[in-house]
């Protein structure tokens, strides 16, 4: 299989009040179609910056980003983003929030009835059909994040980008959403890039873990292949020595090779 997402020599320099700040440098990454990539590293290592580059929300200072051999220029619905703080519009219902995205992507070629069905299917995928008419202010944090995921998936994106989607949730909710995400990705075969702080999450979900060095001028330190068979079960993995070995490797990278001094 050829490289689906291709990042070559990407560099990102921000103009700040204190002068130029190099966030990322020498980023080379190739992602195959259907692959699940986790980006992990300490805070401020530019994981989110890299994700924003792929999303097209920011343009790289140098370097090339190709999706399916086409240069990424600006954001687009084929690269759906799940934001860290869900970013639902508070004046729309859960249904309305998803429908806004569905309408934009498929509105030109599908009937109202089809758009409606798509929206309902997306809600059903994250088990939130019962909350369709609720506003984001009326549901829990975990439910909001699920609506955010449903909104992204409803767009049938080629690439699903997730910026610490479960970071703000409690451990139990996070676990159940991770399981749901695994099931959904299995079903939809979406190519996924996920930024995370959580070592267990990275090992559990991904095919490869991209470990980043500390900023400024952060880059990719190591890439770890997670060759655990799918479907994965968190309880079985808890006893699996391979799982602990992989986990250990990520921890070694983060806390031995690239320990970050507390600021």
């Amino acid at each position: 299989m050829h490289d689906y997402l291709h990042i070559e020599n990407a560099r990102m320099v921000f103009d700040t009040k204190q002068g130029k700040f190099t966030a990322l440098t020498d980023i080379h990454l190739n992602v195959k179609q259907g692959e699940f990539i986790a980006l992990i590293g300490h805070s401020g290592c530019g994981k989110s910056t890299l994700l924003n580059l792929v999303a097209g929300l920011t343009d790289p200072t140098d370097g090339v980003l190709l999706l399916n051999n086409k240069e990424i220029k600006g954001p687009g619905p084929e690269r759906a983003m799940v934001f860290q703080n869900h970013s639902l519009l508070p004046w729309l219902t859960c249904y309305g929030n998803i429908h806004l995205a569905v309408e934009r992507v498929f509105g030109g070629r599908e009937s109202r009835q089809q758009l409606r069905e798509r929206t309902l299917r997306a809600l059903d995928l994250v088990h939130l059909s019962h909350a369709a008419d609720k506003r984001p202010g009326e549901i829990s944090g975990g439910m909001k994040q699920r609506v955010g995921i449903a909104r992204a998936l409803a767009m049938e994106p080629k690439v699903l980008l997730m910026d610490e989607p479960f970071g703000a949730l409690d451990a139990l909710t996070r676990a159940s959403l991770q399981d749901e995400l695994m099931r959904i990705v299995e079903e939809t075969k979406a190519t996924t890039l996920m930024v995370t702080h959580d070592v267990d999450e990275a090992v559990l979900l991904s095919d490869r873990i991209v470990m980043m060095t500390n900023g400024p001028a952060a880059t990719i330190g190591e890439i770890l292949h997670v060759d655990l068979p799918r479907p994965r079960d968190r309880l079985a993995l808890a006893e699996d020595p391979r799982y602990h070995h992989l986990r250990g490797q990520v921890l070694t990278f983060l806390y031995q090779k690239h320990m970050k001094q507390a600021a």
Partner: protein
Amino acid sequence: MSAVTINEGSLNDIMNAPSTEPLVTPAPVAKDPPKPRATPFLQTGRGRAFSEALGKFFRAALPPVIGMALFILVWQLVSTSSGENGLPGPAKTWTSAQALFADPFYDNGPNDKGIGWNILHSLYRVGAGFGLAALVGIPLGFMIGRFAFLSGMLAPIISLLRPVSPLAWLPIGLYVFKETEPASLWVIFISSIWPILLNTAAGVARVPQDYLNVARVLNLSEWKIFTSILFPSVLPHLMTGIRLSIGVAWLVIVAAEMLTGGTGLGFWVWDEWNNLNVEHILIAIFIVGIVGLLLEQALVLIAKRFNYE
């Protein structure tokens, strides 16, 4: 609300409890021990809730009532101590107000209209002047908030004109329009446009970046961004602007009408001053206050509807 419902329920309790119990268990056998007496109402759960709600109501209502009573007392004292031709007291003003409101909509020519007409005329001018201000201020506010260049262009002009006292604009209005009616609308317009303009612009500038990122990822059209993100997001700020603007307009109208004459509350105050009818001036002050309060409360209610947080 809750005080009322508990109250009704408890009243049913009082009425039903003693009467039904003997009916359900008729003809007690002599050997049976005497039925225990029903617990006194205020010791039952509902009774306690009732007395608690009652207490809450009095604690909330008492301070304003005492405040008003003190206010009227001070007014009475000032009135009494100012002698025969001094400030009219509360009772005298009340009698005068009753006479005034007995026939609010008479019309004896241009300078002698009922109080209802005067209130309506003032409200009409506030509505029209504010309407114009909203018509210009809201779109302009959106543009200033969205385009930094326009904001930079207009910021010095706005900062220069905004602190100008509303009545300073009246001569300009009179000179340009040659008539009093458009001149007073002009004064309302120019003094009430600033809050709505600035609040709208601030609201647009403060639309969370997250929402705009959603718009960018979805590639929404500029119109769709406006209708589904910008406008709903700015609406609370817009409502604040409208509230402040109408508040300013209502403040200015009395002064403007005093100078332009004809009809309206302001004119009426000035007219009654010339007649030395001080009771009516006091009544006018109350009317201005009450109408302003009602406008404010109505807008607060509307604003609550649009708050999603």
